[in-house]
């Protein structure tokens, strides 16, 4: 069965980023120079070729763009300067949009108006809810838990997390469906999914593939960011009642200490990304879409506003504390819901899952080969 060449895919994907893969003359330099690419998963040229020929189904099935960490080697050394790394980035955006069943992702990625609109709506919802649901504003001292009841907030967090989880998991499930298409082959047996699950945990926690780039400073920075971010996420979603207290602990108390460290980690990590995007020093920062800006900006705002709440609280400035708190919630809403499962944030899950799926695929292939080579049962 021949594959029919379709010129439209490239035009479509061009909406997701500054790419010019048409410049590529398929020399293979990028794939061979890539420290993350190997014979089982040779990329990025294979993906670029899919774009050139319009092999949409193949690209949907491919998880290779997620295996790329934008080391930039390919782009630096490309003889035609066709920027394969940016192409991978753009394909990740496109894939995110394809995984997202709501269709919102596509709008957010391809339209600045939609992005800003979504942020405004998210902010308005939080502000309206805050206006309607906030408790009394105690002004003589800071009583945050009175202003925003910690149980209510925790419930809200949990609802938010559930919502986030629902979108994420449903998108992840679509990713799974695309990656293991029904039809031609049997999907890998469940046993392999289970035995390879450790890969998922490992890569989610360490992002160790990122470290395989020649320059691994970015990996360290990213790890710091994820650590800070992950810590905060766990604190807020699971331990809000411990974290959000009106009682002022000494500065060395874990509650404050963890909070500060995590916030600083976020500021450091996302600040690094932002500075990179502003100075455009690294390959990956040369072209920035609105989504690339929003993510670190919101992260940094989140951390700063969190620190500010703490600072105002410690300084005994109740009104500022409450307002900042609302602001903090606005940022959180924007981050989790508006650009969360539909946007860049989701790579947090797609990447480790892609590594995991890839491991499953490889194991399954070995498994299939073993079956094919097994002696036929004697009847």
């Amino acid at each position, binding site marked *: 069965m*021949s*594959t*029919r*060449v379709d010129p439209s895919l490239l035009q479509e994907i061009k909406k997701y980023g500054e790419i010019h893969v*048409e410049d*590529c*003359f*398929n020399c293979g330099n990028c794939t061979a120079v890539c420290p993350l690419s190997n014979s089982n998963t040779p990329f990025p040229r294979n993906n670029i*070729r899919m774009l050139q020929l319009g092999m949409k189904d193949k690209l949907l099935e491919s998880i290779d763009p997620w295996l790329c960490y934008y080391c930039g080697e390919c782009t630096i050394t490309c003889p035609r300067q066709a920027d394969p790394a940016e192409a991978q980035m753009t394909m990740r955006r496109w894939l995110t949009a394809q995984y997202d069943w709501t269709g919102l992702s596509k709008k957010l990625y391809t339209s600045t108006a939609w992005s800003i609109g979504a942020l405004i709506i998210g902010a308005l919802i939080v502000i309206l809810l805050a206006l309607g649901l906030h408790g009394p504003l105690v002004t003589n001292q800071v009583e945050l838990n009175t202003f925003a009841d910690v149980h209510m907030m925790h419930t809200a967090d949990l609802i938010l997390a559930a919502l986030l989880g629902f979108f994420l998991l449903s998108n992840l499930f679509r990713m799974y469906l695309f990656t293991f298409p029904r039809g031609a082959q049997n999907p890998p047996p469940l046993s392999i999914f289970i035995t390879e699950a450790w890969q998922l945990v490992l890569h989610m926690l360490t992002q160790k593939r990122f470290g395989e780039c020649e320059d691994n400073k970015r990996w360290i920075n990213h790890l710091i960011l994820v650590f800070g971010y992950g810590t905060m996420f766990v604190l807020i979603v699971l331990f809000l009642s411990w974290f959000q207290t009106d009682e002022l602990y000494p500065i060395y108390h874990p509650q404050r200490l963890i909070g500060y460290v995590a916030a600083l980690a976020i500021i450091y990590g996302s600040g690094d990304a932002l500075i990179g995007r502003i100075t455009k020093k690294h390959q990956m920062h040369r072209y920035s879409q609105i989504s690339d800006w929003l993510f670190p900006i919101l992260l940094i705002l989140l951390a700063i506003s969190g620190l500010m709440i703490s600072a105002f609280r410690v300084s005994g400035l109740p009104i500022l504390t409450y307002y900042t708190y609302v602001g903090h919630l606005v940022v959180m809403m924007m981050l989790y819901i508006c650009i969360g499962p539909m946007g860049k944030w989701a790579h947090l899950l797609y990447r480790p899952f892609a590594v995991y799926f890839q491991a499953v695929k490889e194991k399954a292939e070995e498994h299939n080969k073993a079956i094919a080579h097994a002696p036929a049962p004697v009847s």
Partner: protein
Amino acid sequence: MTEKTNPKPEETKIGVYVCYCGGNISDVVDVEKVAEKMREHPNVTIARTDMSMCSDAGQSIVENDIKELGLNRVVIGACAPSLHEHTFRGTVARGGLNPYFFHHVGLREQDSWVHSNNPGGATEKAIRLMYAGIAKANLLKPLDMIKLKAERHALVIGGGVAGLRAAYDIAGRGINVTLIEKTPFLGGRMAQLETVFPTGNNAREDLHSLINEVRTHPLITIHTLSELVNIRGYIGNYDVQIRSQSRGVSGDNAEAALAACTQEVPDDFNYGLTKRKVVYRAYEGCFPSTPAVDWEHYDGKPIEIDGQKVIFENKKKTFDLRIGAIVIATGFQPYEPPRGDYGYDELPEVVTLPQFIRHMGLRDGNVGELTWKGHPVRDIAAIHCVGSRHLAGVHEPQPDGILNNYCSRVCCTATLHQVNELLDEYPNINVYDFYEDIRTYGLEHESYYTEASKKMVRFLRFHGDQRPEVVAAPEGDTHPVLVKGKDYLTNGLEVEVPVDLVILAVGMVPRPVDDLVDMMKIPKGDDRFLLEVHPKLRPVETPVPGIVLAGTAQSPMNIQESCNAASAAAAKVAVLLAAGQVELDPYVANVDLDKCEGTGACIEVCEYEDAIVLETMTVEGKEVQRAVVTPANCSGCGNCVSACPHHAIDVQGWEVAHYEAMVDAITMEVEI
């Protein structure tokens, strides 16, 4: 060595030199051993070896040996005599010897290169051949070159860009030129192009700047509708006969005849895409501007012009010229695929690149959409190497039995150039390019490839033995034609590309010039193109002195390369004719009057007019008839030699006695 049958040679002092040829000979032949054996020969004064005899240092050795050792014969074993015999004659002359006291033995092309599997045998053979050379050298006599006046007049055959360039450059050196063109109009293939790489200039505008220079040059005479029908003579003094056809119409009635003519034939200028009248101009602005009658197709019926019925008449006339040198610039024709190949001639959507270029040229100005046979064109496939790079055992040879196994050199850049121009005008068209290797080799050519990529041309790579197929799309498909093939940029994926038009990037084949080849006795290569003597030593010369090659008659070339080759050909002609005199090898018949008895047997077998005659002379008081040779008329074939019952005639430098001595040497047992 024993001398039985040979005349005893005079006291000869022979210098023998065996060349390593930079390894070409010494890799196989034990060169030192050969020299060692030569030293055993009684006539050999010195035998040496050298890494390269032809180098200045190597030649100096010979010169010095002649002077210091008093050598009077030189034998050099080296590459083929065709390459360096001339060089070494110069060396010997500088040493102070008559240049014909030299014999060249080919130890490379006819020994080391053909016996690489048998070094021992090759060494033995080298010794044998060198001994034969010495045997001949013993018998050599001093000779002088024959000096003849050379006609400062060149004939250029072909009025395409190469012919025009050559004519202009030769005339620029102050030499008369006659340019003949078979068709009624100048310009050749270049006139059929639109824009040309790497300048993007209009081909006909560029061409006309050259045509104008040529036609206004006082030393150049142009004959269109003319061809060479006969040639005799030799370098500097060729007698050529040229036959011209008439244009059929003249200035007075030309326009009226053009208007009145109704008979139409396929227009070869547009590769049959359109029709034209049998009274025609090749294109608007062509030179000469007077229309001409297409005699091949004219049905001979009268045409009514200004109320008069006129039948055009082809008044052929021939004329003779004396010419010093000839430039062959007969050009190429595009390869025409056999019917059905890639759907050519079967599917209306399949065209060759030259046809497509004409199609682009034929559009009326401002066209918003590209159409082909009335249908809009949205998707185009280009297929490279059609008629080029064929593989033995995979592709069928051409009807003449020759496989087009060469690269046609220009098609890659020409195709991409054309596609880029197309996409400038119609950016929404999708182009798919099926290639084997993209050969945009020139300085500015690669940028055409880059540009095509930037313009979203999609490249698909096939393997030479698995070329793409062009098939009609099934009923109801979105496009009329499918191009199918394996794409080796995508793991050998089977792909199909639906398109509205397929462009075949056809290669070049030489224009058939067998008549010239037969008349002039010039060689053709394995690929049918005319063959030069040596690609580096004498890249535009044929083995026939005074006949040189220009442009695509020799091999595929682009315009730049054709013009360079043509200018190079002009330089060779200038070298030959600038002095107004040529020197010929003195290899002509020579009568030994002591032996001649005036039988006239020689004259009976001689085919050259006035080369040999019987003259009356007085010998020992008696009036006798004796044969006398006129060197300028003698070709040196030797017919007369075997005819003479008294062995009284020989070809100078190539005497029967030389051969007998060489046979003696060859049959001698060599111990090594």
